[in-house]
């Protein structure tokens, strides 16, 4: 479980995150949603330790990330898997090499064991017959699958996904969402997804926090979305007039 306790983050005297508190539960898909510039990527980077909050604390299974020494932080990072917005695959390595990379860096397994595990996760993300392809030869959806495979190859306790659906068509987006959701349940990990894709919110949003201008405006699950009266959240979810009218009609029924 990840617990965020009243964090503040500033950039050049501009407060990007204001008093954010949240709990991201184990075995659930936790979503951070909001408009572009709402601070969701900054929050994700704070969770990853790439940014240090000016105030407040972040706990990973009751261990404070902010108080950790560099060595402890490196150890924790080996328990994290991350899927970046642009996949961030190493473009000088093949699919197989990308997936084997964390194991080569951090385990003492021999080459056969590493290859076996890589093939196992390649099969899990439905990417067979692509082992020797280079990232540039893959479609966006396939690149995301490789990124997911690389993120889970070390059996992480925490999985972070930054806009996993960006640049993907709706059908592929649903496949990627479902894959992340299945992996979360299968490995019983804490998954945090940063998104503004409403399809993802409705499909897999078990625990959602909504950010606006660096403030947490709303928290709930995909089941609570239709019941909420929070104006900012309603404006975000029902961003078009057609959707607003549809909501009104549903409520009146």
């Amino acid at each position, binding site marked *: 479980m990840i617990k965020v306790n009243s964090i503040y983050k500033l950039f050049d005297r501009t407060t990007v995150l204001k008093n954010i508190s949240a709990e991201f539960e184990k075995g659930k898909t936790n979503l951070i949603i909001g408009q572009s510039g709402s601070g969701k990527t900054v929050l994700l980077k704070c969770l*990853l*330790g*790439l940014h240090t909050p000016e105030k407040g604390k972040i706990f990973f299974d009751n261990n404070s990330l902010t108080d950790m020494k560099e060595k402890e*932080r*490196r*150890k*924790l*990072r*080996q328990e*994290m898997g*991350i899927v*970046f*917005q*642009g996949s*961030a*695959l*190493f*473009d000088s390595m093949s699919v197989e090499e990308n997936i084997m990379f*964390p194991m*080569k*860096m*951090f385990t003492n397994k021999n080459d056969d064991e590493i290859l076996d595990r890589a093939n196992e996760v390649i099969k899990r993300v439905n990417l067979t017959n692509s082992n020797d392809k280079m990232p540039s030869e893959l479609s966006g959806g396939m690149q995301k699958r490789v990124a997911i495979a690389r993120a889970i190859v070390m059996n992480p306790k925490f999985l972070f996904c930054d806009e996993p659906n960006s640049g993907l068509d709706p059908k592929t987006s649903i496949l990627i969402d479902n894959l992340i959701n299945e992996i979360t349940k299968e490995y019983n990990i804490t998954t945090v997804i940063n998104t503004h894709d409403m399809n993802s919110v409705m499909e897999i949003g078990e625990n959602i926090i909504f950010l606006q201008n660096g403030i947490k405006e709303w928290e709930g699950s995909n089941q609570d979305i239709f019941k909420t009266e929070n104006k900012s959240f309603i404006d975000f979810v029902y961003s078009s007039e057609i959707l607003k009218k549809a909501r009104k009609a549903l409520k009146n029924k």
Partner: protein
Amino acid sequence: MKIIKNIGSYFLMLLKVFGKFTKWNVLKSLIFKDIEVLIIGSLGIVSVISFFVGGVVAIQTALNLTNPLIPRNLIGYATRQSIILEFAPTFMSIIMAGKVGSYITSSIGTMRVTEQIDALEVMGINTYNYLIFPKIIALLLYPFVITFSMFLGILGGYIASVSGGLCSSAVFIEGVQIDFIPFHIQYAFIKTTLFSFLLATIPAFHGYYLKGGALQVGKASTVSFVWTSVVIILANFIITQLILA
């Protein structure tokens, strides 16, 4: 102020490069890969430039020898001195700042803008050591490139002189051997070793701390070439003052 901040960041970066080391098996393959790209991949351009510049130095010297009292073996002597003391170590390094430096800046810069460096950091890897240290080690072989450049430069001068009828083969070789000071080779190697470190680290600095997108990668490559060249010229002046003056 920005320059002072950048100089400070550069030295802090160097400290981090020698911080937590990457696993040897991985580091070894990165070093060999960098040797292939940075050293072996540069031999072609070094050969062509050295050979023809050596030839031009010999022709220019010969054309300026209008006084019959000056011996023709000066052509070989001037070619040797120009190539060994300045052309191979210094000017070849500036050419390498364009070739190798741009490659280092753009490859690390692209990794920065495509979040590959963030991915490495999140894995708990010391990205400074992983990305920059192999390049420093690979470029330790740079003095061999310069040896190659020296040989080809003098060979170019020899072929241009003999084939152009500027002097005989024996006279050119006599000029190459005359008043030879072996310490000049050491001086060239000392310079080259320092330049190789600058060639690896200054472009890496510009790539690592890059902010923005693809356009900034191109700009950073240009800026890194300019700064690497300036620092090489300044370092050349200081080393020459310290060692030869």
